[in-house]
């Protein structure tokens, strides 16, 4: 493997790890907090939101990366928003056509992906400055990192608020559901505890 190839592979690896852990949009950068708090009452809507974000991020990063050499600096945010809005509209139409119940459950949070900072952040920080391959890896890694974080949060909340996960009961019938976990307060508490855990784990690693 030549030095250039080795450098490229190393860059891809770093991009992948950054999205999944080092720069995880939810746990490390605290981006996209609106859907993180709003749709994590159960795993199914959280996963659907995560997959929708992956689709939009993937498509918008490809388009932005392809047009990066033609972008006028003063028009770039407008171009990013236009690109993101187009793919979010398509994702919204798809959900309304094929998973109408889920589309209703997610409500306005699917159209709100347009203003999700993760997507515009990746377009600005990565896709507009990097090659197509790096942009695609970044989109998949960041999207997967976001989806993973949403799924972890929603799993904790769903188990504690219903005693089930993916609507399959896992806790004994004697378990008294914590109604608060289904409400916004549950989202804030779970996210706070998760952030604390992630910070503690990172600090421990740095100390070692």
């Amino acid at each position, binding site marked *: 493997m030549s030095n250039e190839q080795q450098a490229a592979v190393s860059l891809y690896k770093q991009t992948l790890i950054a999205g999944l852990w080092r720069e995880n949009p939810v746990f490390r950068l605290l981006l996209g907090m609106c859907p993180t708090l*709003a749709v994590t009452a159960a795993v199914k809507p959280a996963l659907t939101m995560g997959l929708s974000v992956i689709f939009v991020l993937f498509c918008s990063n490809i388009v932005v990366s392809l*047009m990066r050499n*033609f*972008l*006028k600096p003063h*028009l770039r945010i*407008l*171009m990013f928003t*236009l*690109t993101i*809005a*187009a793919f979010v*509209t*398509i994702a919204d*139409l*798809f959900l*309304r*056509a*094929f998973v*109408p119940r889920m589309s209703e459950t997610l*409500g*306005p*949070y699917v159209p709100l992906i347009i203003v999700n900072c993760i997507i515009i952040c990746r377009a600005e920080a990565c896709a507009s400055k990097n090659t197509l391959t790096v942009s695609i890896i970044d989109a998949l890694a960041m999207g997967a990192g976001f989806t993973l974080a949403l799924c972890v949060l929603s799993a904790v909340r769903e188990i504690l608020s219903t005693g089930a996960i993916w609507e399959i009961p896992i806790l004994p019938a004697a378990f008294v559901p914590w109604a608060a976990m289904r*409400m*916004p307060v549950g989202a804030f508490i779970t996210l706070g505890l998760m952030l604390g855990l992630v910070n503690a784990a990172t600090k421990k690693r740095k100390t070692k």
Partner: protein
Amino acid sequence: MLKIKYFIQQSWLLIISSFFFGLLIAIANAAWAPRIQQNKIDKLNRLMTGLLSNASHFRMETTLEIVSLKQKKIKTDIYKAISDANTCVGWAFICDGPGFADKIELVVAVDEKFKNFSGYDVLASNETPGFGDQIKLPYYRNQFKAAPVDKFGLAKTGDAEKIDSEIVAITGATVSSEAVVKIINNFLPQIKDQMLKEGLIGNVK
């Protein structure tokens, strides 16, 4: 000429992208719109059946012209609920109006004589989750059930379980609660008057 050249130089990518994305959305919409429409019809049937459980099927009886809350003339279909014995057991129709965040679409059902309210359900709304979207919950909707078809009023406090024309607003979502009451108050008298004129009610067989 120079100005036009400068304008094109600066914005050609934006113009091309707008056309391209517009086309992409139009294609997606054309491909999925029938399916979305069918989903909406299925949901309407499901909600109507939920509100008028005695009905075995629904038949679109007429289309009426209503003046909306925005003072625009809109058309709404009136569905007749028919039982197994082939008798009319109620009426259902779609009402809409502005909510807190977006348009609220309701399915409203009344009894066969248009005297008592059978209830309403939400066909589409984008009200704030956790607050305004509580208009979908039974504890608010049940206040309308069996209430006389009259002008509903909204109260901030009161007994929500008492069946009358006074509806107790949802705490933290007064605008959405008020929107539902306003929509129903706007549609009911207009539909009732027109149905009486058309002879659809008042002499129910």
